[in-house]
């Protein structure tokens, strides 16, 4: 057997004729053999003026890009190498790095969330409850051991294994007095049934008892992983995916009466910007006024809850042609009183803090609310 034959496990491979010599008596046509050629090789057969030549040529880089850790969705998150700051560190963070990052971003408090927990929706989709629990438990211990340090203003959220609400509640109870854990995180993409469902009540009850806010965190680009298939561009799935995950879960949470039933709980939605909130508020109000009986737990208009019981991470803050338009969007949804600055560092579309400081329509007091005061109140920092 040639060493260069490329056959896997060559040390245990033997030609068939050595096992069954009778095959040599036949002419055999094999109608299905899978050869392997690396994707990059195909690029050479594309015209020079074809952009796909370059994209195929980058296949190795794209495969290794840790950005593919998320639901891949369609297209290329980093626009085939043109967005260079698509960073997902490939080495383990330590506390010194967190402090360096804070220095780089000019931030004073950092709420860390590990990358892997953003995949909980994917795990939930496959009903792998055990996998989620194992990760949640190990993650919490690792973060507390390795990165979290309230003395340095470094905190984390408890990644609730929400498909097993009683387990999640038990974890909340266990870590209630841990100063470095300042909230409970529920990952929104893929959460089924939606997070307003009564099955999640143990989580909300435990968080309320523990005095910990609930943070609903969006994720992925993968609208086409969880919702609607057939989009052909990343711009579509990225725009809609993050927004839709939070929009749909928020609808469920508010209309199921979670803020009414757990009035001492604070809620935050992160990583879906702010533009969608006003649209949802007033659409829900219109519906509620027609179909109040379908939301029996509500005592007020939905917009009232959305404005006053929910906080919203600002990232990615929308771009509008004129600042006045963004101001209208912001004030319509109750901001800036319910906004909390969030960077989403190190993801490619992160917002540095001057995204807020340079808003011409915010007063200095309002800027301070968004940059620190609201979050310090919500997370009791």
């Amino acid at each position, binding site marked *: 057997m040639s060493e260069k034959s490329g056959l896997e496990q060559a040390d245990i491979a033997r030609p068939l004729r050595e096992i069954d010599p009778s095959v040599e008596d036949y002419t055999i046509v094999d109608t299905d053999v899978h050869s392997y050629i690396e994707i990059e090789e195909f690029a050479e057969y594309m015209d020079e*003026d*074809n*952009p*796909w030549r370059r994209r195929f040529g980058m296949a190795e880089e794209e495969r290794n890009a840790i950005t593919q850790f998320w639901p891949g969705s369609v297209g290329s998150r980093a*626009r085939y*190498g*043109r*967005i*260079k*700051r698509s960073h997902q560190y490939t080495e383990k963070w330590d506390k010194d790095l967190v402090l360096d990052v804070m220095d780089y971003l000019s931030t004073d408090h950092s709420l860390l969330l590990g990358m892997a927990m953003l995949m909980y929706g994917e795990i939930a989709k496959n009903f792998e409850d055990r996998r989620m629990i194992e990760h949640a438990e190990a993650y919490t211990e690792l973060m507390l051991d390795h990165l979290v340090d309230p003395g340095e203003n470094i905190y984390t959220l408890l990644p609730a294994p929400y498909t097993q609400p009683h387990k999640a509640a038990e974890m909340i109870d266990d870590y209630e007095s841990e100063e470095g854990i300042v909230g409970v995180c529920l990952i929104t993409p893929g959460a089924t049934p939606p997070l307003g469902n009564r099955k999640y009540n143990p989580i909300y009850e435990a968080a309320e008892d523990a005095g910990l806010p609930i943070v609903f965190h969006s994720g992925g680009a993968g609208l086409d992983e969880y919702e609607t298939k057939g989009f*052909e561009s990343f711009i579509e799935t990225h725009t809609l995916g993050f927004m839709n995950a939070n929009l749909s879960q928020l609808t469920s949470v508010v209309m199921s009466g979670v803020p009414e039933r757990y009035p001492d709980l604070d809620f935050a939605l992160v990583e879906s910007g702010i533009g969608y909130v006003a649209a949802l508020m007033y659409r829900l109000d219109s519906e509620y006024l027609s179909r109040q009986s379908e939301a029996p737990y509500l005592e007020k208009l939905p917009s009232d809850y959305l404005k006053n019981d929910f906080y919203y991470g600002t990232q990615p803050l929308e771009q509008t*042609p004129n600042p006045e338009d963004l101001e209208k969007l912001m004030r319509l949804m109750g901001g800036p009183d319910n906004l909390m600055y969030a960077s989403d560092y190190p993801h*490619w*579309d992160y*917002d*540095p803090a*001057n*995204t807020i400081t340079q808003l011409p329509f915010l007063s200095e007091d309002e800027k301070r609310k968004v940059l620190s005061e609201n979050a310090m109140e919500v997370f009791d920092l």
Partner: protein
Amino acid sequence: MSERVYVDDADNFEDGDRHFVDYNGSEVCVLYLDEEFHAFLNHCPHRGGPVARGEIMPGIDYEENEHGEPPKERYNDCKIITCPWHGWDFEVDTGIHSGTSGGAHRLTKFDVEVESGNVYIRS
């Protein structure tokens, strides 16, 4: 007339070279591409990213076809520089964001003067 700043000897530019100079405290990139000089502030109008260090690629034309397949993409002669932070694309010739016809977003460009074999920029 605004200040003129010396950049380098013209012979020190090869095709695709980018030289960076200080202009009144701001970093300006002088790019030599297809036998033309272009100069612009190394500051993306979006969020201040180092746009001048981005990839430079041809623009893309889309050819419709009759059979319902996705449009075929082909490079054209336009040169686009992409900010490495968020992917904002700017035409090198005009400095205008390639997604906005009205020029709402654009690079801050500088005039380039070549005199006696020396390259200068002026705002």
